[in-house]
């Protein structure tokens, strides 16, 4: 066994170890240690990706000295490693990008606890990326939910506690449905390891036995994870949650936490249910319809919003809708579009939150659009970063959003039915709506403020030595890479999908 085959396990354990260590470190040391661990896991994930791509097949890592199905198991293929790489990179960039605000928003004595929570989120995301066991997936799903609630509520300001309560209630509903689904999978197939469940499910699908319980089970798991990731109409917690948390938390919650749930759902669809089964088709249709409604409604509420952070949050509801439309379209083209959107949104939304926080800081800490006028002139770097993120969301060529929309269009026309027309129409309407609120915002922040002396208290000099700028450059590089080299990423995703099942 190559040493690299230990890296998925080490990625989880290193984060768990760092979480414990951070609880006794001083705030400054905890921040540095957490950033170092996040960077280390980025390297681990990149090495795992390179290894699995070179070898051309996934590897399994048994825990507990027994072979499957008696042991707990991790499994790493190209897609698992790609997801781990994206999650760990965005975690690192969001962490360093929002350090400035975390220092202000969080009490000094809780700064190290915040790092502990970030490490727990890292551990949970790595476990969700690599696990091959459904119940382990459930446990880390809950760890992810609890630590997400922690990074939200640690800022004791405004309505964060109320936002956290609503977030938890919706998430617990999703967790309950998911756990019941896992229990039913175990009851019908006798296994918890994904590949073994799939054998049982395929047998049942072929014989037509237990077709209703199977459909209900798949429906429960899909609904549970869709609710947790904020699919319409369960997106109502988003504006409060993303709008009131400290920018690092908003970036992590919108960029990667919801994607962790979606990645587990895609994994279950490929590795547990199999995309060809009849029950799967029914679940996909429902997700497709809610995804389509979510795209339009999310954009509609974003347009109506009067505050920048709430607008970005509502836009997330629309972007999550895109992912579920991709899943609903099905086939490799549909899942490729969904996974590409997961990556594109994971890099774009945190950039918008962090740049938005800086623009707000340059406007007297107000998120209202009226106050943000001309803020891009008061903080040039943040203005440029926000413009890049916004243009990507609209779908300007050479940026990630354009490639995503292209892959969605390709997935839609492959069907050759009325579904194409509906998907393409919603894609067009959504692009128009995105342009309406994002370009309007960019124009607003670049329009000089009418006030004779616009908020002179803000000094642009902190831009030069703040890690926030480095993080913004990192996010922008990711967006440009996804926009300029979509073929490379697409081939990685397709290779990953071929070894995912």
């Amino acid at each position, binding site marked *: 066994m190559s040493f690299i085959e230990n890296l998925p396990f080490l990625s989880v354990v290193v984060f768990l170890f760092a979480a414990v260590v951070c609880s006794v470190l001083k705030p400054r040391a905890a921040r540095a240690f957490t950033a170092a661990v996040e960077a280390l896991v980025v390297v681990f994930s990149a090495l795992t990706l390179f290894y699995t791509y070179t070898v051309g097949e996934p590897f399994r890592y048994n825990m507990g000295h027994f072979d499957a199905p008696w042991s707990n198991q991790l499994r790493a293929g190209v897609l698992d490693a790609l997801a781990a790489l994206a999650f760990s990179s965005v975690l690192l960039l969001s962490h360093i990008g929002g350090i400035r605000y975390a220092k202000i928003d969080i009490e000094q004595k809780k700064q190290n606890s915040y790092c502990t929570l970030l490490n727990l989120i890292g551990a949970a995301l790595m476990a969700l990326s690599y696990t091959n066991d459904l119940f382990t997936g459930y446990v880390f799903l809950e760890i992810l939910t609890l630590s997400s609630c922690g990074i939200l509520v640690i800022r004791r300001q405004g309505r964060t506690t*109320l936002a956290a309560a609503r977030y*938890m*209630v919706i998430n617990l509903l999703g967790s309950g449905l998911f756990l*019941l689904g896992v229990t039913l999978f*175990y009851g019908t197939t006798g296994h918890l390891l994904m590949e073994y469940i799939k054998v049982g499910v395929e047998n049942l699908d072929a014989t037509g036995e237990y077709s209703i319980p199977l459909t209900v089970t798949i429906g429960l798991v899909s609904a549970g994870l869709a609710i947790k990731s904020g699919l319409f109409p369960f997106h109502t917690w988003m504006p409060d949650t993303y709008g*009131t948390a400290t920018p690092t938390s908003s970036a992590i919650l919108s960029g990667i936490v919801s994607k962790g749930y979606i990645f587990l759902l895609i994994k279950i669809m490929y590795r547990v249910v199999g995309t060809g089964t009849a029950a799967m088709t029914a679940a996909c249709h429902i997700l497709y319809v809610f995804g389509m409604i979510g795209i339009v409604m999310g954009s509609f509420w974003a347009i109506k919003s009067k505050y920048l952070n709430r607008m970005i949050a509502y836009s997330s509801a629309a972007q999550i809708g895109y992912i579920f439309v991709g899943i609903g379209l099905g086939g490799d083209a549909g899942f490729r579009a969904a996974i590409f959107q997961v990556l594109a949104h994971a890099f774009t939304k945190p950039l918008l939150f962090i740049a938005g926080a800086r623009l707000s800081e340059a406007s007297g800490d107000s*998120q209202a659009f009226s106050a943000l006028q001309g803020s891009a002139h008061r903080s040039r770097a943040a203005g440029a970063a926000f413009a890049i993120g916004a243009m990507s969301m609209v779908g300007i060529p050479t940026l990630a959003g354009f490639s995503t929309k292209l892959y969605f269009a390709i997935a839609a026309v492959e069907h050759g039915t009325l579904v194409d027309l509906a998907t393409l129409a919603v894609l067009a309407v959504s692009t128009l709506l995105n342009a309406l609120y994002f370009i309007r915002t960019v124009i607003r922040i670049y329009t000089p403020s009418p006030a004779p002396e616009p908020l002179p208290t803000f000094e642009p000099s902190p831009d030069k030595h703040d890690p926030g700028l480095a993080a913004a450059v990192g996010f922008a590089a990711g967006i440009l890479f996804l926009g300029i080299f979509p073929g490379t990423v697409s081939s990685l995703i397709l290779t990953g999908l071929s070894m995912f099942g």
Partner: protein
Amino acid sequence: MGNLIYNYEEAVALILFSVGFVTLLFHRNMIRKLIGMNIMDSGIYLFLASMGYIYDRRAPIVEGGDTNPVNYINPVPASLVLTGIVVSVSVTAVMLSLAVRLYERYHTLNLDEIYAMSRRRSEHR
């Protein structure tokens, strides 16, 4: 109907799950929501526990050199229930701490009232 009576433990478990789910979703009081969540989870644990027990078989501890698995029940569901209980307890603790914080700030546990109060104070700005 016959199946429902035969599998009465599973049926009760699903009824408990539904009661808990609806309570968690629709009740406006935080503590009632929390109780709903615990009922919902207990329903699932009952489902798992009843699935794990097979009538007329022994506890999964080898006695008298009998290693034939047919004579023993499956121990895995019991361990899943234990793990699930640990998760539930953690979630309950976090939710209770949120309820305490909400009460300290708004002096009520009714989420509708809290939401209205928060709007009046324009806390979302």
